[in-house]
């Protein structure tokens, strides 16, 4: 476990440490989700670490990590701060955003609260736009049932185009299925084709105009459609961060290049 500042140097230091870790990780998995979705409970359930869990919104202010073994593979799990969005507003959200966008994890698990899944799907869609290797874990299924809410996980799977795993992390329900899903995506490299979000015509035209040039500049380092959209947003912090990562990549061989990443809808 280690603390991390919002600075991008922190992300790089963190990635380097992950690389040099004494336990060789076969895959690095990011764990994301809105605040109070039981993300830390999923983390503890998977890794067996007994982290303190409380009910304060966004209480996970440091980046925790833990390991587990599944089917003879070492999986490193990174517990990101709770976040509503990748269009970062706070330092916490920036840490989560930077890790998902630039840390190039082998899979990103988004934990969603089954009792108010609608609001959680916003983050799911945003993560799906960055990385095809997205898994949705719908947690608190038992509480939803108590409120007469039934979640059609296979229906969600069809609509989103990503694996969807129902869970009650507190009672360790669904965690084996989640480990299996992570194994398929991160180890077996089973391709996932999330259904791309199509925006209105004017936005799509603007994205198309930019995307080829962006693709050339990025040299496949991140998703060019996503990068083009962030340029259209004009989010200065995101653009600075992207430039920083591109420069960094010229100096040292990053995780991103070593692994290589394919996007199935490009």
């Amino acid at each position: 476990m280690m603390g991390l500042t919002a600075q991008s140097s922190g992300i790089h230091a963190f990635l380097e440490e992950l690389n040099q870790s004494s336990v060789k990780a076969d895959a690095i998995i990011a764990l994301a989700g809105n605040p109070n979705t039981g993300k830390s409970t999923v983390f503890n359930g998977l890794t067996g670490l007994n982290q303190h869990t409380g009910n304060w919104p966004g209480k996970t202010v440091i980046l925790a990590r833990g390991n587990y073994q599944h089917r003879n593979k070492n999986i490193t799990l990174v517990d990101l701060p709770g976040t509503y969005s990748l269009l970062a507003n706070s330092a916490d959200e920036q840490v989560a955003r930077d890790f998902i966008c630039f840390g190039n994890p082998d899979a990103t698990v988004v934990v969603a609260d089954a009792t108010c899944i609608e609001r959680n799907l916003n983050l799911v869609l945003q993560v799906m736009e960055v990385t095809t290797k997205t898994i949705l874990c719908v947690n608190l299924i038992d509480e939803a049932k108590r409120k007469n809410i039934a979640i059609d996980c296979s229906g969600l799977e069809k609509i989103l185009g990503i694996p969807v795993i129902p869970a009650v992390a507190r009672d360790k329900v669904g965690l084996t299925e989640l480990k299996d899903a992570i194994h398929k995506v991160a180890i077996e490299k089973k391709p996932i084709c999330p259904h791309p979000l199509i925006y209105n015509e004017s936005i799509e035209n603007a994205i198309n105009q930019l995307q080829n040039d962006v693709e050339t500049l990025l040299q496949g380092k991140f998703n060019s459609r996503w990068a083009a959209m962030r340029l259209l947003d004009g989010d200065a912090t995101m653009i600075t961060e992207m430039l920083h990562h591109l420069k960094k990549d010229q100096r040292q061989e990053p995780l991103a290049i070593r692994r290589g990443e394919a996007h199935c809808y490009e």
Partner: protein
Amino acid sequence: MSVAEFELTCLPMGKIAQVIHVGSEGATRNRLLDLGLVPSTIVEAIRKSPAGDPVAYMIRGAVIALRSEESRQIKVRSIN
């Protein structure tokens, strides 16, 4: 602007309304959209803080407190 359209700030406690338009800009707009306040969302005013500001709203299954400077930017219409 239709007659039925008003600012979310004016929604009485216990009443529900439907979002028509989020007028804020930049980071505030992003935040409100991230919290689920998109056009056609149903919002219920559920309680006022002692000073009358902020006000807690039920939005897509979660209770969210908004300052009047934020809720003033949100145009809603009554539904019933």
